[in-house]
């Protein structure tokens, strides 16, 4: 079982992207669970969401405290990610929304065996569709590294979720992020 914790701010689609990942994993034949952090929905405030994916039925119905993956959607929170990696497994993965600024990050608080990946979600979304969307690019990077669910499956879920031009826009940024995710080791 893999346990994922998403961080971002209200309005950035934190809950939506975790939901899309879980539904995609189920469509691929896996067991999955998605749940939001159950708090008031406030635009701009820090928000968490959680995804579990497994080959076996998932019985646990309590929170995720030792995630395998922490994925941060917000840029500012990515630059100062230390408060959000609490409980990360020793060999866990951190996904950050960073571009050139990735070279400045302070790795001292990360577990030594942890791996860091970056997606320049702002650049990708602004260049592709003319406005910043962070959640779907981060998902593109994540599914590339996890090697599941497949892009086709995620695109199918996106098509059911959005309508009109939003489908194409999200698929564009999903694919580009899939190709451009960086492994910082």
């Amino acid at each position: 079982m893999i346990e994922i914790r998403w961080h971002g701010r209200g309005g950035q689609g934190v809950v939506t992207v975790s939901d899309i990942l879980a539904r995609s994993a189920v469509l691929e034949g896996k067991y999955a669970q998605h749940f939001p952090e159950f708090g008031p929905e406030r635009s701009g405030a820090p928000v968490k969401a959680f995804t579990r994916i497994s080959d076996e039925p998932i019985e646990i119905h309590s929170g995720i405290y030792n995630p395998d993956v922490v994925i941060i959607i917000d840029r500012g929170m990515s630059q100062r990610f230390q408060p959000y990696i609490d409980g990360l497994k020793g060999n866990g993965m951190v996904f950050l929304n960073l571009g050139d600024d990735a070279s400045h990050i302070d790795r001292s608080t990360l577990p030594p065996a942890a791996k860091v990946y970056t997606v320049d979600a702002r650049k990708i979304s602004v260049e592709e569709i003319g406005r910043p969307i962070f959640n779907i690019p981060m998902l593109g990077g994540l599914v590339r590294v996890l090697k599941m669910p497949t892009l086709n499956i995620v695109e199918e879920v996106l098509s059911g979720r959005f309508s009109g031009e939003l489908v194409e826009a999200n698929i564009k940024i999903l694919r580009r992020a899939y190709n451009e995710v960086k492994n910082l080791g």
Partner: protein
Amino acid sequence: MSELRPLRKMALTGDEAVAYAAKQADVDVVAAYPITPQTIIVERLSRYVADGELNAAFIQAESEHSALSICIGAALAGARTFTSTASQGLALMHEVLHIASSMRTPIVMAIANRALNSPLNIHCDHSDVMNARDTGWIHLFANNVQQAYDLTLMAFKIAEDPDLLLPVSVNMDGFILTHSVEPLEILSDEEVRQYIPHIPYPYRIDFDRPLAYGVMALPDTYMEFRKQLFEVTRKAPQVFRKASNIFSAISGRSYDLLTPYFVEDADVIVIALGSTIETLRYAARRFRERRLKIGVVGLTMYRPFPEKEIVDVLENARCIAVLDRAYSYGGVGGPLYTDILSTLYKNQIGVMIADFVYGLGGRDLKLTDIEQLFNKLFKSLEVGRFDQDIYWWGVKDD
């Protein structure tokens, strides 16, 4: 036949799954008032009606009190009737709950279990349904999203059984199930139609055959009405089993009043309701790897209380922990604890037992909390007694 059925796997939240079940049940009347965390159920149903996918009267009432009153009228008119609520909404319905059961209306209601004020809290506990415990309703509890879907379908079968004609509530933990996406297998619309065909309500309002409804009963007759309710409620377990057997033949999934897990050789048994059951099972398996024998019992039917079945699974236990997600303030303990205590005493079973109040207002019962609880049970078993009768588990120290 069941292995030949195509699997229809979906990923839905608990609220979406219950709404989907009510749609497939082809309900005639939905009367409700929105309240978190059930709002999505009625939102979905109103959309199904607006989109023409469900041919029903969707009535947004001005309060839960009115919503359930409308449901009673609709059910007496012979409509298949559904509502859902939570917390303060269920509390506001309270006086109507008694009327729904004693007028024998087969209403199905989803309860998205949520704490009661004050302080204001929208998160999960079972205080809402426990206040409705003694109202004559059948109360079922789902452990996961699949069960929330299945039990909603079964609830119609149970409620409308001519031997029963009682309202049924399907409880699912607020947010933990209502807002979590999980995979589930759904029946086809045709399978649902076969399972719960519309059958005429035997005492429906009919102007050609007038009957008196909701009459006044004086001391010379009131008690006889109430004894009827007492007697019919006792039929619910057998009606549940009948409904479950047919459901199992269609779906391949079977349900019983209890879900005993590893109880045969267990030294210690924990009993609970709702989504906690599966987390307990997961933790129990990890303890068994260390040869610590824990059994877990969940109640799918909480009212009427499955007394005989509880005795069957508990009679050889050496130590019992009851997990209560509600409390009876000023009482002997939490509601589930006092039910279990009474059952054990009635059947002359003397065994170490304690109540663990947990998870109020959405306080997460973490795996580490459960491990500490299990350790506490084995330690207490070693010394042969608990040092308290009621523990508030997972509460921060002062």
